């Protein structure tokens, strides 16, 4: 992880760490914090705790997003401090709806300059964000909303498994992982486990991202905690609830970052700091029946 971030994430980059609730790569964000990256433009549908931490650590200059809360809990306090008070550094924002963000990444992945969508009429969002515009359909003459392509310098994807080339298989919620990976100039693939190519080839329909668009493959078990990996470990809902208290006060949040991010060399050491966590969150087995790929 250290090498991948050192090589592929640069100051001033447009960075996407995706995963909708599921498969959010906190391990990569922590490494970005440890390496003191700065002036990043960070984009995600839901900034979640992962960007609250990057913002608190002073790594971000700008946030592009569509829903900025702590899911099921409340506010993201570091993000709100940065927007409302400009601390620790002022944060510029660019705001869409979920559909708008999905469409931006779809356009980026398809190498189109924009994506048309039936959205935003009657909403104040286009007035708040001048990049949400309209186009007239050449066939029906109807007016459609448009959003510009998003092509990140680097996208970081967390997946359950991949082979050594980064041919990655994801099951459970996909979010916008595929679109975010194809839209990016560089892709870091982080996985719970590296498997033999034969495992991937035995079930090709489950492969979401091909290795030939991947620039680095990192094996990082528990790399998504406190997010989750279906079939590996559950979401740490208690952590999300506790974050409300930790992040409410900047001094306390900085103490947390010092201890759990800067105070550890890697993810394994981070997990070791919380004894019993692996046992508490480990997924129960629930296998599906395979299918016949023969001909």
């Amino acid at each position, binding site marked *: 992880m250290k090498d991948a971030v050192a090589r592929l994430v640069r100051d001033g980059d447009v960075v996407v760490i995706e995963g909708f609730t599921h498969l959010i790569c906190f391990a990569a964000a922590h490494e970005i914090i440890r390496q003191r990256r700065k002036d990043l433009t960070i984009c995600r549908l839901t900034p979640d705790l992962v960007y609250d931490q990057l913002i608190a650590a002073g790594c971000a200059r700008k946030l592009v997003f569509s829903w900025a809360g702590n899911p099921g809990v409340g506010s993201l306090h570091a993000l709100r401090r940065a927007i409302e008070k400009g601390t620790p550094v002022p944060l510029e924002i660019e705001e869409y709806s979920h559909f708008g963000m999905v469409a931006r990444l779809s356009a980026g992945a398809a190498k189109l300059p924009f994506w048309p969508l039936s959205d935003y009429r009657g909403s104040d969002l286009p007035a708040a964000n001048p990049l949400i515009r309209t186009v007239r359909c050449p066939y029906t003459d*109807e007016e459609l909303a448009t959003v510009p392509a998003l092509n990140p310098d680097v996208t970081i994807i967390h997946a359950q498994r991949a082979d050594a080339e980064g041919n990655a298989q994801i099951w459970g919620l*996909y979010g916008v992982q595929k679109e975010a990976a194809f839209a990016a100039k560089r892709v870091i693939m982080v996985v719970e486990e590296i498997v033999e190519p034969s495992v991937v080839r035995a079930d090709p329909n489950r492969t979401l991202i091909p290795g030939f668009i991947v620039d680095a493959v990192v094996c990082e078990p528990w790399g998504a905690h406190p997010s989750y990996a279906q079939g590996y470990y559950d979401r740490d809902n208690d952590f999300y609830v506790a974050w409300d208290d930790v992040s409410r006060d900047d001094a306390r949040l900085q103490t947390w970052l010092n201890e759990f991010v800067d105070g550890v060399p890697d993810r394994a050491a981070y997990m070791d700091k919380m004894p019993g966590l692996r046992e508490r969150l480990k997924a129960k087995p629930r296998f599906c029946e395979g299918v016949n790929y023969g001909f």
Partner: protein
Amino acid sequence: MAVRAAKELRDGDVVFVGIGLPNLACNLARATHAPNLVLIYESGAVGAVPDRLPVSIGDPALVTDSLAVASMADIFQFYLQGGRIQVGFLGGAQVDRYGNINSTVIGPYAKPKVRLPGSGGACEIAIHAERVIVVAPLSPRSFPEAVDFATSPGHAGKYGTRKQLGLPGGGPQRIVTDVGVLEPSPDDGELELVGIYPNATVDDVKAKVGWPLRVRADLEKYPAPTAEELRLLRDVLDPTHLYI
């Protein structure tokens, strides 16, 4: 509120579910009068049958035993924009006279007094779902004459009416609050009181709304929740009292 919201759902409805009370209402409806409800979450779970109350709309329990898992691009383009969703549930910090919903900012956008989470999928749900059910406790602060920011369009506003804008969905059809239910007038889309709960009075409700509230002549009086409904909510669906 959860019991009333559940009753707004019809068996077989395809519902776009939000987190919190809507989620509880959908699961109550599924356990009572609407066993064939199809629950769709914007996270991608289609036909979800969660066996624990999900804390987030991306909970892993939504995937286990679901009918399908779709990418979010499919969810928004094919399911929602494609017109396949009958009911969308929305909440918000403010709901105004014409059902516009604000979940973005209190105060001016550039210098907000309170920064709220933002649209998420709310804007497009309000535009495309056949009917939208809003669940929000009533108070003068949350039901002003006009919202500070229209995240999700209601029936009329500074950009025009739904018809003028050509919005495909029906917009907020029922606003379920903690004292009664509001509904848009068929004439001009203004929200009117159509029903109240047993312990509420019309004057109470009027005092909690930021515009002169019209009351339907055939005002409904809703029965109190039954013992069975309360048992299901408290003991089965939300045993750890996450939402109630």
